[in-house]
C-alpha cells in the first residue's frame, strides 16, 4: 500500500509543482506588462 500511495502522491506533486511554475511565470509576465505600460 505504501508504494501505491507513494506513486499517487508523486504524480500529484509533479503536476502541482508544474502548475506552480506556470503561475510564477504568469506573475512575472504580468509585472513585465505593467512595466511596459508605465514606459
Amino acid at each position, binding site marked *: 500500500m505504501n*508504494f*501505491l500511495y507513494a506513486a499517487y502522491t508523486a504524480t500529484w506533486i509533479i*503536476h502541482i509543482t508544474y502548475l506552480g511554475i*506556470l503561475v510564477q511565470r504568469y506573475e512575472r*509576465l504580468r509585472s513585465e506588462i505593467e512595466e*511596459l505600460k508605465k514606459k
Partner: protein
Amino acid sequence: MKRAFPIFALLTAILLSYALYEALVAAPTEQTMGNVQRIFYYHVPSAWTAFLLFTINFVASVWYLIRRSPHADAVAVVTAEVGVVFCTVVLLTGPLWARPVWGIWWTWDVRLTSTLVLWLIYISYLMLRRFSTSGQTPVLAAAMAILGALDVPLVYFSIWIFRTQHPQPVIGGGGSIDPRMWHVLLINWAAFLCFAGLICWSRYRLEILQREVEEAQALETLEPRSSR
C-alpha cells in the same frame, strides 16, 4: 473562451476526483499483485497522454517547417513541455510499481531505457528552446522534435519486438484485462486527457502572451535608435 476555462477546469477537477475514487476504491483488486497494481491507473494513462502530446509536437513541428506558422511553433513548445511532465510521472510511478512486483527499482530493458531516452530527448529540446538565442532556434527545435518523435513508436512497440521485463501491452498484446479494470483505466485516461488539455490551454495562452511581451520589449529597445 475566457468563460469556458473555469467551467472546463471545474469539470476536469470533478472527473479527476471520480477517477481517483474509481482507481482506489471501485476497481477490483488484482489477484497476484494486490493493491499495488492500482498504480496501473496512473502509470498507463500518463504514458498514453505523453505519447499523444509528443505526437502532436511532431505534427506541429512538421507544420512549422512547412508553413513557418508561429502558432504551430507555440503548440510544439507547449506539447513538449506538458509531455515531459507526464513522461516524468511515468518514469517515477514505474519504479514505484516495479520495486514491490519485480523486486528491483529499475532494469535496463528496451521499454524502460527507450522511455528514459525519450524523456532526455524532450528535456534537451526544452533546453534548446530555453537557452538558444539564435534566430534559427525554432527550426532547429522542430528538426530535433521530428527526430525525437521517432523514439515514440520504438517505446510503444518495444515490448512486441523484444523480450523485456516490462509486461505485454493491454491493447493488442494478447493479454486480457477484467472489464471493470478496463472501465477504470479509460475513466482515468479521460480525466488525465482533460487535465492535459487544461494545462496545454493555459500554457499556450502564456506562450502567446510571452511572445507578445518579448516583441514589445524588442520594439521598445529599437525606438530610441529610430527616433535619432
